[in-house]
């Protein structure tokens, strides 16, 4: 096998510092938003006692799900032994770590008491899926970190396959844990489904790969390195399979719910009568995030267009955020069913669909998390050799 030549990016151009500066500004605005949220209290956000998790959680869960998906490329190379993906494995590991870090920062900064991080680290309730997730996340950092190290260190290279396998297994558990945060909530009609966990795994494949392709294309274009069509065509084909699989899982999830009479109410809400949530579901999640990318991936004539591939990835990200919005916020907006057969009303918004308008604070925090992930990638590819000097097609 030909040796791959990895090289740090130069990172001295004005554009590079411009990128870091731009991302830094986004992070600064996010921190300002957090300061206001923590100082005034959460009432200034769109979140209420009805919609307790809002836009920050949409971004955070999306990033965490995408993080484990971003590791896929490395897994395909090491676990499934596809040599063509080998040169991309380092970036794949790095992106996974960066996205997870971005997502976790959002979750942390949205807490009512982020100053009590030490409490979250020292008091554990082992029955809580959240508590498990704290271990799953820190474990993910450690395992993927070691995996990346083994890939880069000649002395440790022989253990790379084992580390890759461990990281692959860990990421499956991690996404199962993330999906289970919702899947185990028996109280709410929209979440009460074991299918949540596998659905999140499939979603992670699609979202993670979409972000990976965008980052790959951007970094090669901006550094003037060669990126051949072969690898992009492969990734694009993979993306098609993943997007189709997501649509399949979403369909099964809703069909199952439609079969269960108890869940008819919430299904009718999401699919037909939910106002903004119905729109986000059909337009964002299904059309923009599913059908359109699928059509573009398999459309003849645009197979080699990188602009179209970039568009496809962007659409999948929009679809990903939309599906998180429908699941997380739509699921809360539908009222709890406490008294079947009764119309319910109170001063505490019982029995009514809850309003939610995302506030700029929440969106700023969410984008800040994305920016943090991007800064990590942009910085680390400058100081360590993550990217192959060339990914030109083999002649």
């Amino acid at each position: 096998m030909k040796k791959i030549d990895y090289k740090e990016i130069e990172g001295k151009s004005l554009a590079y510092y411009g990128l870091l500066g731009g991302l830094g500004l986004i992070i600064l605005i996010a921190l300002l938003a957090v300061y206001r949220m923590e100082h005034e209290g959460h009432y200034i956000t769109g979140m209420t006692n009805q919609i307790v998790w809002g836009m920050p959680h949409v971004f955070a869960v999306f990033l965490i799900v995408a993080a484990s998906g971003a590791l896929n490329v490395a897994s395909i190379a090491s676990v499934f032994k596809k040599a063509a993906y080998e040169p991309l494995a380092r970036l794949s590991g790095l992106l996974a770590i960066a996205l997870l870090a971005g997502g976790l920062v959002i979750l942390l900064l949205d807490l009512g008491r982020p100053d009590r991080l030490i409490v979250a680290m020292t008091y554990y309730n082992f029955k809580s899926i959240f508590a498990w997730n704290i271990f799953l996340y820190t474990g993910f950092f450690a395992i993927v970190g070691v995996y990346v190290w083994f890939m880069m260190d000649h002395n440790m290279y022989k253990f790379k396959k084992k580390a890759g396998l461990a990281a692959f297994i860990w990421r499956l558990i991690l996404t199962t844990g993330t999906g289970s945060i919702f899947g185990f909530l028996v109280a709410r009609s929209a979440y009460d489904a074991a299918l949540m966990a596998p659905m999140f795994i499939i979603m992670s494949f699609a979202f993670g790969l979409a972000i990976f392709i965008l980052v790959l294309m951007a970094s090669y274009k901006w550094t003037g390195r060669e990126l051949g069509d072969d690898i992009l065509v492969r990734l694009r084909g993979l993306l098609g399979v993943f997007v189709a699989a997501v649509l399949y899982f979403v369909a099964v999830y809703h069909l199952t719910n439609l079969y269960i009479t108890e869940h008819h109410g919430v299904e009718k809400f999401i699919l037909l009568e939910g106002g903004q949530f119905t729109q986000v579901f059909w337009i964002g999640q299904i059309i923009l995030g599913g059908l359109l990318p699928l059509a573009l991936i398999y459309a003849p004539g645009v197979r080699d267009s990188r602009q179209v591939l970039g568009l496809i990835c962007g659409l999948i990200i929009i679809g990903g955020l939309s599906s998180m919005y429908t699941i997380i916020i739509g699921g809360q907006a539908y009222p709890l069913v406490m008294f079947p057969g009764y119309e319910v009303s109170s001063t505490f918004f019982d029995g009514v669909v809850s309003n939610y308008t995302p506030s700029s604070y929440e969106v700023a925090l969410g984008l800040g998390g994305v920016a943090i992930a991007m800064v990590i990638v942009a910085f680390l590819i400058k100081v360590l050799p993550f990217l192959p000097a060339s990914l030109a097609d083999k002649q």
Partner: protein
Amino acid sequence: MSDAVNHSRRSFLEKTAAVGAITIAPGIMLHQVASAKPDDQPVTDAVRWGMLINTNKCEDGCTDCVDACNAEHGLVGNNRPETDTQYIRKVTLREKQTGHELSLPLMCQHCETAPCVDVCPTGASFKRKDGIALVDKHICIGCRYCMMACPFKARSFVHEQVRNQTLSAPRGKGTVESCTMCVHRVDKAQVPACVEACTQGEHHAFIFGDLNDPNSEISQELAKHGGKQIRADLKLNTGVRYQGI
């Protein structure tokens, strides 16, 4: 230095408080909560505190229990109903098929197997041995997972700064809170504020007592006429039961 600290002013206050409680609620204390637990003894699972609410006696439009709760815990709203805390609320039910209407107070149901306790990452949501579900606000990080898990929407997040708290109901921004079954009163052998207010208002919709004691008024009434749990399908074994739904 010793235990015999001069607490003249303090003990004076305690005495007036105790006298107040006795004159406010004659009778209730005597036959419902037999004896106060000594201050230095921990609560045990020999008792399980519970409530039985007879919705037939609960008047539509009456908010005595809610008002008493708000006063007891210093729950002052900020005219923002979507984010203001409510421990207990009046819910109006209208049966879709018959049009039959009824009204009931709804609060933390103090489940035996409480979903909030299961999901809490730090253990801030916990059950006292005597069956009261509480939030330990000292270790609550404000993640709100318990609010996602609660089937009764019983919990509120403190969305803004709180000042001038009452002595017995510390509460502050960034943590989650809910009905405490007036644990500070129960430990002094008093009944919860909502129960007291309902009884004083001559409605008598609440019975508070020990579900473990077959001779308590609540157990006797439950044995005689039964009582339903809200969302009984979840098998949470709630500590608050209802009649007439």
